[in-house]
């Protein structure tokens, strides 16, 4: 299956989804980006350079870990985990960001901008900018700045300027809008490092391309570990959809069921979650540069979204998934906040892993389905990131009293 072998006049489209809906002023910039990216994609030495960078800087390949304890406890399928949490900066976001860093370098640009919600993408981008010597500005909704201060702290220390966006819901989607505003002003020297497989063409393709390293490795690794077998099911969480696209690309051509796990938040109902496909609250629209399923009202204005995982808390889904879902190639499920909390506790205690809250959505659905599967069946979960960076959120999610005491004492110490 080659998703990116576009038909004439349908470049950037996946079925009816995707495209590029941008202000005219960006046309030349996007053309230049497309040209550069496609040149790189055709050039095998580019991928080699990328792989080497990821190997030496970020520690790739990340391993696949077998979870004997969890598998045994659930009594069904054998569970394996792809460990994107072991990347430098703690998530798969670095794969995309370093790739775009190379692109930016080829474009001869000296400045990068990025949106961030949870902060992982901003953190990764700030890291990449430090490494490549780019100026860096990160847009982050004011609400997110407040709840993700640790990431802001590191971004600033890595030399990035972090702008707290005051518009709209003051979260991820508003940060994206603000990036667009910066980009239409500074495109001559600035590359916009979009953080997930969303946005206008070529971003979904480009981000998927760099994230495909996950699936390429995982396909090889799982076979090595299981004597040549492929997984029966692969689970990945889906915010914008980049980590899921990353791992799924390793298995599209195989008889492997692919399950995208969205943020079920407080359960179905407008404004209570961020599940675009698993629940039936979203509809097709065009925003933030592309066409896909959005959580929007009848007038096409976007709804509030809710999730314990900031990184999944987004109104739209990547257009490739909207298409693959329609085609029946990828199944979508949603994990609620409550399921995520319980699953996180379970995984920490049984296997010593701390998945990011985002990644825990994938674990939650795997934990639900594993017992119904045979002991000779295989599950692969993509652990897109590590949870220890989200201690404030996790401590709140788990409602930890000691933690609250600690914070109060720390605050008292700062007061004095």
């Amino acid at each position, binding site marked *: 299956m080659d998703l990116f072998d576009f038909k004439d006049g349908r470049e950037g489209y996946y079925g009816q989804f995707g*495209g*590029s*809906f*941008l*202000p*005219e*002023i*960006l*046309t*030349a*910039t996007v053309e230049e980006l497309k040209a550069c990216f496609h040149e790189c994609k055709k050039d095998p030495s580019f991928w080699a350079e990328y792989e080497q960078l990821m190997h030496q800087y970020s520690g790739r390949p990340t391993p696949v870990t077998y979870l004997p304890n969890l598998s045994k406890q659930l009594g069904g399928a054998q569970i394996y985990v792809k460990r994107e949490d072991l990347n430098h900066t703690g998530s798969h976001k670095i794969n995309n960001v370093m790739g775009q860093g190379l692109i930016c370098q080829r474009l001869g640009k000296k400045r990068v901008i990025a949106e961030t919600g949870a902060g992982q993408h901003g953190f990764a981008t700030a890291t990449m900018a430090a490494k490549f010597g780019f100026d860096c500005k990160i847009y982050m909704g004011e609400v997110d700045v407040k709840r993700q201060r640790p990431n802001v702290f590191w971004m600033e220390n890595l030399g990035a300027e972090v702008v707290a966006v005051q*518009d*709209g819901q003051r979260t991820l*989607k508003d940060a*994206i*809008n603000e990036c*667009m*505003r910066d980009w*239409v*002003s*500074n*495109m001559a020297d600035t590359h916009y490092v979009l953080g997930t497989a969303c946005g206008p063409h070529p971003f979904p393709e480009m981000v998927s391309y760099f994230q495909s390293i996950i699936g390429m490795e995982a396909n090889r690794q799982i076979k090595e570990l299981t004597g040549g077998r492929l997984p029966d099911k692969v689970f990945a969480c889906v915010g914008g959809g980049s980590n899921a696209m990353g791992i799924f690309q390793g298995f599209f051509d195989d008889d492997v069921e692919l399950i995208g796990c969205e943020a079920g938040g407080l359960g179905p109902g407008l404004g209570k979650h961020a599940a675009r496909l698993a629940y039936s609250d979203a*509809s097709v*629209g*065009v*925003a*933030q*540069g592309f*066409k896909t399923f959005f959580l*929007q009202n*009848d*007038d*096409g*204005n*976007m709804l509030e979204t809710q999730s314990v995982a900031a990184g999944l808390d987004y109104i739209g889904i990547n257009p490739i998934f909207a298409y693959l879902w329609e085609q029946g190639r990828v199944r979508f499920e949603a994990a609620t906040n409550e399921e995520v909390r319980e699953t996180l506790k379970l995984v920490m205690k049984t296997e010593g892993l701390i998945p990011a809250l985002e990644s825990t959505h994938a674990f939650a659905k795997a934990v639900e389905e594993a017992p119904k599967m045979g002991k000779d069946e295989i599950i692969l979960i993509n652990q897109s990131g590590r949870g220890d960076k989200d201690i404030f959120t996790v401590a709140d999610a788990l409602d930890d009293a000691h933690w609250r005491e600690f914070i109060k004492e720390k605050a008292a110490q700062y007061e004095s």
Partner: protein
Amino acid sequence: MSLKDYIAERKAIRTPLVMTHVVCGYPSFEDNMKELEIMNAHGVDFVELQFPFSEPSADGPLFVKANQESVDSGTTVAQCFDFMAEVTKRFDFKVLMMGYYNTCFKMGHDNFIKRLKEAGGCGYILPDLPIEEADELHALSKQADLTPVILMTPTNTDARLAQLGAASQDLVYCVARKGVTGSKTEMNQEVITFLERCRQATDVALGVGFGVSAKEDIDFIAEYGDIAIIGTAALKAWEVGREEGLHRFFESLGL
């Protein structure tokens, strides 16, 4: 009378023509009406009625705030069309729908065109709808005799401007500089060169916008373009001094 004729007729009276902008429902439809009264009194030729959108990514801070507050206060697309109908009935200037493509997409192209026509609009400006994506909508517009206002920008190549020109009718919107709405543009040689390139690319009227806020700008556009498009500056004047402020502002422009 066709829009082309309307432009020709008005040009005979005063040059440049003037297009102003109102964000529907901000601060309220009543205030919008008061603004329009003043604009009408100062003889504007076109008004954009912006349908507020939750993701106004091509707008600058003041319009962002206006979009947002209007959405938050519950402004609907239906209300905007109703308002447009009232406006077109009451005033002589031409009214354009301005907004983001999702508003149109969500209601369906057919429906959009139908309701815009019913409300008396003469066209629309959708800054996030590139011509590549606009075939169907443009075809429907032609049938309904509505004008899609296409944007030309300084970063476009001559080839691209020619493409944009070919797709245009009646008027184009020349974006005087990079960036979003709201900040001042220095009307310099660069802008002149850009407008000359636009003129090469099309015969239709050149609207010039983004940062138009002073008498010099109007004079400049009189020389190099056809329509001065005044956006944020008017809203700013209103924010500061309401009716009186807006009135003074137009006076200061010599209108």
